[in-house]
């Protein structure tokens, strides 16, 4: 019994003088390890629009919308809420244009719209978003 109490007292006294084990998040933000798999990023420069990433994604989180293949007008639609962060797409991409950030892990949002991320040239993204909102409202694309 004495041994037990000694161990508990030691722990309790140490804890009194030690700084807390927890961090004052969100005021203090710990850095994540380099290997962390968080939000996916896409680099348009190298992409050939082959669509392997979308095909291999186990969660159907990726869609490559091809506006003009010759002019390399692609829009990469990434659904963060579908993503399981397995990094299969990063492995599948032959051109090395996908990467997973290691510091964007605060992905919670109050609005569901924030979970759909579009990458690409601003004008292309705008036209794709317009088409998609039209399709949602039941209007034919391009109207």
């Amino acid at each position: 019994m004495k041994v037990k109490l000694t161990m508990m007292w030691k722990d309790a006294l140490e804890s009194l003088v030690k700084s807390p084990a927890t961090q004052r998040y969100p005021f203090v933000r710990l850095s994540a390890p380099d290997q962390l798999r968080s939000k996916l990023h896409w680099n348009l420069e190298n992409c050939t629009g082959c669509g392997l990433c979308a095909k291999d994604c186990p969660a159907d989180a990726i869609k490559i919308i091809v506006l003009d293949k010759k002019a390399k007008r692609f829009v990469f639609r990434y659904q963060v809420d579908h993503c399981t962060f397995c990094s299969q797409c990063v492995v599948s991409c032959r051109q090395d244009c996908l990467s997973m950030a290691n510091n964007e892990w605060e992905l919670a949002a109050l609005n569901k719209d924030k979970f759909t991320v579009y990458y690409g040239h601003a004008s292309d993204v705008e036209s794709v978003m317009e088409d998609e909102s039209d399709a949602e409202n039941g209007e034919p694309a391009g109207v």
Partner: protein
Amino acid sequence: MTGSDDNLWQGDVEKLKGLVSERALTGETMVLNMGPQHPSTHGVLRLLLELDGETVVTCVPDIGYLHTGIEKNMESKRYEQSIVMTDRMDYLSPMGNNLVYCLAMEKLIDLDVPPRAQVIRVLLSELTRINSHLVWLGTHALDIGAMSVFLYCFRERERLLDIFEMVSGQRMMSTYFRPGGVWRDVPAEFEPAVRDFINYFPPRVDDYEKLLTNNPLWLDRTQGIGFISADDAIRYGCSGPTLRGSGVNWDIRKALPYSGYENFDFDVPLGQHGDVYDRYLIRIEEMRQSLRIVEQALDKLPDGPVRSNNRKYVPPPRSELGQSMEAVIHHFKLWTEGFRPPVGEVYQRIESPRGELGCYLVSDGEPKPWRVHFRTPSFIHLSVLPLMSKDHLIADLVGIIGSVDIVLGDCDR
């Protein structure tokens, strides 16, 4: 809620026939629903209890509240795509689930695994076992009333999760083991972190023992509770600490070694009485033995590749893609079509922290499996709950559920 009074019993009494005794139908005993939202059922387990006062007469487990359809879903995905789903079955032992699925796949296609990957797999599987046992010990002690152990266990678990995060990029859903090896090599800071844990952890296990093993309250609540004989344990298909608690020397790591477990020196702790206390002692000792394996694995970690060189099943490294046309073709073929294993079926089993975890794979030669089935210890162990809890007090039932260490994600696939 008695069976005889239809005004009180909301369900159909006829449906209870065969599940509970005749005494419940006449109203002599009480039928009580425990769970699925109950803090001590470790997930969403529902127990239909027939009580005579405070004594359990019948206990009928009811599952399905966490059914995810993972097995069925795997049939619509290519072999490699499904690894990500295995993490989510037994969420306390994701690496173990990865391992059994990868081993089954490797058996099906006869794929080699480099020695370094084998040792990394063993090392991480054992760390996962410690991680799982820590959660078990914390929650089990909390159920029985020892609050401080819970805090200590989760403090230690944090270090393990940091190691998993460092290696795989994720704390829980690691998806780290892949067919033919592991996803990528461990980083340089891995070895010091594990060495640090090896030095840090043994005194902590001693601390848990100081708090619980000879504690009169703990002994009262665990000794002689939830007894199961060796014969019954074998007959019901128990495995892992539940089987070894009854004194049966059966550990798949020793009996049917996989991933090179035959090269490691460790003991298999055995119980004598088959009660909650013996199962507790076994898991505590298993943590020490796992640490022994981790230390040996770290000492003998060989250099070399961590993924097989068989290009038919394993994608080429990125460095080859810019130089070899053949590598590009392999890469493209593997990620567009996947690989086609030969027609056949395999069964692979491993010793997960909870017991025998088996994976049954049936291939019809297509890139997607025809059938995937997991034999999970949690599901099997639920069937012994009625036997273990019979004639015990309802308060002891909580300790019994904790002692078989069920994870409902593992139970409902």
